[in-house]
């Protein structure tokens, strides 16, 4: 199973160093945490990995193969999936349809057979529908399959995003604040699912503002502040690091 490496990665917007000298590793079978206060550059890191933002410096590799210059869709086809911090669903489509689009890179039917409605195209759709229902049941969303995604409650929308991201069984999943706005029961449910996914061999990168949730789940945690990596290691090491404490107290006045 491949792992993801960030090697001395930087992103500068004009004179502003949004992210600078970030080096980290996301290993398969584990949940890796990336925490930091608001504006620390966490989402910038996710956007660079997933191919939305270009790198100013450094390299990003999956098992030694660079994806630093790949387009977002190429990154995805190399097995890196993501969710979005500000939820992005297909609002007019149903929950089921939202999940089905997640299977895109597993499609086998040619364009012609799709146009002509040949059996291979129908088999694809059938296969994906079965798998989609499995996912819906696993995330306890089967009752909402026919709902328009845009009308769902916030927590449910997050689940749809996750189902869509993992539908095509990626090697690496970037979860951008997956439990934001959820209550404890809901986040516990998700935590269980994350553990199961990691156990099945996926590499999960959990980007969170909420330190507690991350420390409970992750073996390895990285801490960003003002675009720089200020600490890394086990949850215990990180949370006792004076720089980390200062960063959190210094910036989160709320």
């Amino acid at each position, binding site marked *: 199973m491949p792992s993801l490496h960030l090697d001395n990665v930087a992103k500068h917007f004009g004179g502003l160093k949004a992210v600078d000298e970030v080096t980290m590793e996301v290993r398969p079978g584990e949940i890796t945490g990336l925490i930091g206060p608001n504006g620390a550059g966490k989402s910038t890191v996710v956007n660079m990995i*997933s*191919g*939305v933002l270009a790198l100013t410096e450094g390299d990003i590799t999956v098992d030694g193969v660079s994806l630093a210059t790949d*387009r*977002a*869709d*190429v990154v*995805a*086809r190399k097995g890196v*999936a*993501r969710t*979005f911090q500000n939820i*992005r*669903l*297909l*609002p*007019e*489509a149903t929950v089921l*349809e939202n999940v*089905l*689009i*997640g*299977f*895109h*890179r597993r*499609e086998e*039917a040619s*364009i012609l057979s*799709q*146009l*002509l*409605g040949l059996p291979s*195209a*129908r088999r*694809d*759709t059938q296969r994906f529908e079965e798998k989609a229902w499995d996912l819906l049941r696993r995330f306890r969303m089967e*009752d909402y399959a*026919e*709902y328009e995604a845009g009308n769902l409650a916030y927590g449910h929308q997050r689940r749809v995003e996750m189902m*869509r*991201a993992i539908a*095509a069984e990626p090697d690496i999943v970037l979860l951008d604040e997956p439990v934001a706005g959820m209550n404890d029961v809901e986040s516990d449910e998700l935590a269980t699912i994350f553990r199961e996914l990691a156990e099945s061999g996926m590499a999960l990168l959990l980007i969170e503002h909420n330190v507690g949730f991350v420390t409970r789940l992750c073996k390895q945690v990285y801490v960003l502040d003002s675009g720089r990596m200020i600490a890394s290691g086990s949850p215990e090491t990180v949370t006792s690091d004076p720089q980390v404490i200062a960063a959190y107290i210094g910036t989160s006045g709320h």
Partner: protein
Amino acid sequence: MMQFYLAYQPIIDFFLLSVGFGYSQQIALRAGVFSIATAGFAALGSYCVAILATKTGIPIFLTVILGTALAAAVGGVLALPLARLRGAFQAIATLAFVQIILSLLLYGEGFTGGALGIVGIPREVNTWILLAVVAVTMYVLWNIGRSGMGRVFNALRQEESVASSLGVNIGKYHIIAFILSGALGGLFGGLQSLYTFQIEPHNYGFAFIVNILTVVILGGRTTLLGPIMGALIMALLPEIARPLAENRQAVNGVILILVITFLPNGVGDEIVFWFRRRKQARQQQKRASEKEARDAVSTS
């Protein structure tokens, strides 16, 4: 019935052609491509067929296939520069494309007949042929809707960044959408020229763009029923509103404003959505009562 058909046959044919052009316009919008190039594709298809049918001995059905292929190819090529554009810029660029086609048709007199257009095109197309072609088109579009391509188009329309995060090559699917839009535009353009004996550049100008846009806006941008409803209303309106003859343009304008403001999904899409919602409600009810029954069994 026969009497009715004889009296209204051109309206029926006009309706079928509009449905075809409507699908050409719709497939682009459905994939999130803000294109109004259908007029240009239709012009290419109809001129290709007209020129081949009047100047060569090529069998008629072959001219239609060639016209379709030409428009599809041009659609594919057009997609390349347009791949980098979005929204308003795409609309303007496709409008420019139509203008270029029209001025070349006017200019290339020796070949296209200039403003005089091409006359004496054999009338090979009748209602039944149109009906058959529309049916085949609908079958293909139906397949697209149920396949991965349809899902990708929906995703591109609603949230492009999601599609690309899932591995969708946006450029590739925009090219596919343009090729399909071009093929349909060219196909029905070709049929139109085999129906009306005579074509001229003027037929594919601003009025054509507005009419086809109206068909799709009025009918709906996502469902198969959309262009059918739109074309039906557009075909019947001049008949019903003939007393308003001099105001027909204005009536068109009022329809566009009212529909886009108060019925943004269009008549056809709304009908389909209504049935879909009703079906969902029934299924949910069914599931709820099943659950109740299960609960009742387990607690007893």
